[in-house]
């Protein structure tokens, strides 16, 4: 299983959001770090084909995802950054509806919905309207729908934003479990999340891939004499060192 981005270019008017971006993902968790405007969300939107690219190719197992169309979306689980939900739907209805759009039906859908609602700890509020949920609960609803249908490629844009520490740890551990046989792309500002679960970290700056390596390797690559923020060097130092101004 391989998701390959080759020489991707994306421009918004005069602004170049991604400039000749190339990377290959195999099974595992990839943490994407970058300051605001670095191109993380653009990258996510390009892989989920929510925006048009200006150049380059994205292939899944050697086949262009645009040619694959709905076949690619059948193996994709996407959790966007914006908390777009149907406020009038209950959590169960919302996840069921998204399951239908993923092509699930019958008993498989019902079981899948039950499973993801339990995993995201929403089982107790499944009959409550999503519109009345807190930001963290909405995050979990969006994560639930992304997990439906056993996706091979999971794109999670800020999945733990707004969650309390206990929930964050729970979700983080769960994502780690998921990664065994799938590609998980994780964009977040919470560096500690990535540090503990990512197999590799992508550092993005102004639309370019600055570095891509396992967290420990990145930490060890810090220049000599760097003063760590805490007691010992961490990924946060990597962020500040390479992506800070």
């Amino acid at each position, binding site marked *: 299983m391989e998701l390959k981005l080759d020489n991707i270019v994306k421009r918004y008017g005069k602004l170049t959001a991604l400039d000749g971006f190339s990377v290959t993902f195999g099974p595992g968790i990839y943490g994407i770090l970058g300051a605001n405007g670095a191109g993380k969300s653009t990258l996510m939107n390009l892989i989920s084909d*929510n925006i048009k690219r200006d150049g380059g190719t994205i292939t899944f197992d050697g086949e262009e995802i645009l040619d694959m169309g709905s076949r690619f979306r059948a193996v994709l689980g996407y959790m966007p950054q914006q908390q777009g*939900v149907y406020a009038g739907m209950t959590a169960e209805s919302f996840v*069921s509806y998204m399951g239908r759009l993923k092509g699930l039906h019958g008993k498989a859908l019902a079981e899948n919905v039950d499973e993801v609602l339990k995993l995201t700890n929403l089982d107790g509020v499944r009959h409550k309207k999503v519109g009345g949920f807190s930001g963290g609960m909405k995050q979990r609803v969006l994560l639930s729908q992304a997990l439906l249908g056993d996706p091979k490629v999971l794109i999670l844009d800020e999945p733990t934003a707004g969650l309390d520490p206990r929930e964050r740890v729970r979700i983080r551990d769960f994502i780690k479990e998921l990664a065994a046989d799938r590609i998980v792309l994780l964009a977040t500002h919470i560096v500690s999340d990535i540090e503990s679960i990512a197999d590799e970290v992508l550092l993005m700056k102004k639309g370019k891939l600055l570095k891509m390596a396992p967290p420990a390797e990145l930490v060890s690559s810090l220049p000599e004499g760097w003063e760590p923020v805490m007691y010992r060097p961490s990924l946060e130092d990597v962020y500040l060192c390479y992506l800070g101004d």
Partner: protein
Amino acid sequence: MNEWKRVFCSPGRLAAAAVIMVLSTVFFYISRLGEFDIFKSIGSVLMSERYYSELVDSIRGAQPEEAESLIDEDDAFIDNYSFYLDSDMREYMTEEEIAAVEEGLAERAFFSELDGMESSQRDDVLALLDARVAEVREELEYVSGYPGYLRQIQKQAADQSETAIFGNKNSFSYRNLMKTADEFAKLEANGVEAKVCASRGFETFIVFELADYLYLLFLAVIVMSFFEERRAGLWCAVRACPNGRARLGLTRVAVLAAAAILGVAVVYGVNLVLSVSLAGGWGDLSAGAQSVPCLRSLTQNISIGGFLAQYLCVKAASGFLIGLFLWCVLGVVSNSQFTLAVLGATLAAEFALFRFLPVQSIFNPFKYYNIFSYVRTSSLYTDYLNVDLFGYPFGIRKTALLWLPILAVALAALAVLITAKKNPEGNRDILSSVAGLWDRLADRVRRHLTAGGWEVYKTLIYEGGVLLLVFAAAAASALFNYNATYISSEPYTRASSYLELLAGPISERTDRYIEVLREDAGEDRELSAALDEAEEYVDHQRENAAAGGYEPWVVPNFRGLYEGVFGPTGDMMERMRAAEAVVFLVLLTSAMSAFEQQSNMVPLLRSQKRGRRGLAARKLAVAFFLSLFVFAVVYWREWRIFTEFLSEHSLLSTLYAPLGNSGVLGSFPVNVTAVQYITAVYVLRFVMLYLCAAAVMLVGSAAPNIGMSYLLNFAVLGVPALLYALGFGIFGFVTPAAAISAATDGFWSLGESGSFSGFIPCAVWLVLGCAAAVLLLRGGHGKPKKV
């Protein structure tokens, strides 16, 4: 932000106010002119109204007999002048009659304007003048009868009070009779009288009911704006501001008062000015209000001018009270998700009590001391009624007006108190508990919905489609009264009656039947002539059928039924109906694409396996059923009138006759039956309607939210359709209403001239509608917002 600016400068609310004003004005114009006149050109209508005003002026102050003779003179002159203009009819006029017309023309400068007109427009104007004369005659009859009416009420009261049932002097009934007699006697004693004063303009203005509901809608829009911070999750933030509690409440009271006055100006002021302009001026405002027929029961001694001033002030005060009432009801609802539902339920309950509670019911105070008494303020002036309170009669108008300031002050205080004291969190929320129970049960059903079923559910429930369907059905039913006339006033002749008996395939049996009828007719010359006419028709049908190669039938098409429904006579009605269908479709389908945009769901949906073409296809399928619904509510009555008329004359079977037999449609080039022809017309209409729905959805998918989608669709599709229906032919180039109504014209002109040109609007919208559907399928149901 300044609260005044926030409420009054919001583009959405400004647009809503504009739409309300346009709807009020358009429908008022239609009701002011009546179902017949709206199809005449505005110029002709204005001319006739000017004539009305002149005629009223000419009889003002005259004695009843003299006024009546003046009206008779004008009536006769219009009839003679019609003959005079028609060269065929002129031959039958005597020289004296011609001289009289020419003499009359010299005296009536108004008619010289008709000289240069085209004959069709002149006929329109003359028909309108006839109608105006009849109205002045009615007005005169009312004025002459008013003193008698006053005496009759007093006599009736005196007579009834002597009967055993009403005789108990301590009963409400007796006191009510005495009070009624006394109030009307006072009017007579004070010399209140009705005068001829161009009252038609005032009458239509006062009784126009739709304006009251549009005003209510306007107030609801304003009151809903007071709850925006709750819906946006900013309630706590607003209350944390120094001026976010009592002071905000007081400001909103002032805003509501201003909105109530503004609404009166927008909804009623415009209608009053329009009405008066059409009637040729304000007339005699010093005449007693009782000069307006609908105010005959008013027991207040007041002039028309005084009445209008009082009426508009009461309207504004009532509007303020209604707004406060809605505010208080919504204010106690903690969960902002239920505000619309609570608003709808409250108004529905009040309306049900107002409209359906019997007058005799002991609960009738709920009927009269009801928020809708203040919505329908005119009924306080047009209906004389005393309500039983502790055995004593109280005039509904006086008590309602007395309570008005008291209630307004009390509700204003309550509204401020709610704004200041109601906490955003920690309230007991019964509605949420009930809704939770409902959701628990509904989830059991919803989990079994298919993807298509979900789209239907979303449209009907989450987008409020159910309410819109009910509204569309009710509005279609109400609007049909305006344009229901199909069958011409052509007399039903003896020959028609024979053709009705002979209807069906022509065979030897037909000839034998004619012989039998001839024997029955005997020596009666009139019957024989009618039979000759029928036999001639049968022979004619036989010859045509032999030439055309189809089976001959007797298909009576008397009284212009086919022309009225499927031919050029019904052209304007078809336009009206098509515009109605377009407006309903805009209402029902505007939210379908915009809902996803508003919910910020587009990126998520587009990343699902069936979230693009599949979802768009399902939405188009839902639009298909909505179009079918609109088609049914708009056209089923037309079909019913058509078939009921046929059924009434036992002619339903003639629908299966080859079309060549149906005289007016007979030249249609393809050999089909009448029912096949009609089916083709209806199918084409429906296809055009469905393509219009696709266009609405495409426009909606470009809008960032549902409000903007409605606005764009009304601007692009709804308003041009209405203007086209009102006779502005130029809008036929840009509205699908032209394509829907062209289904009738196209088939008709194909038969008449063999030309396909009548189908041009259909062809244009076929291309546009298909392009819209393809774009929807290719682009999913919208584009994600920029990252």
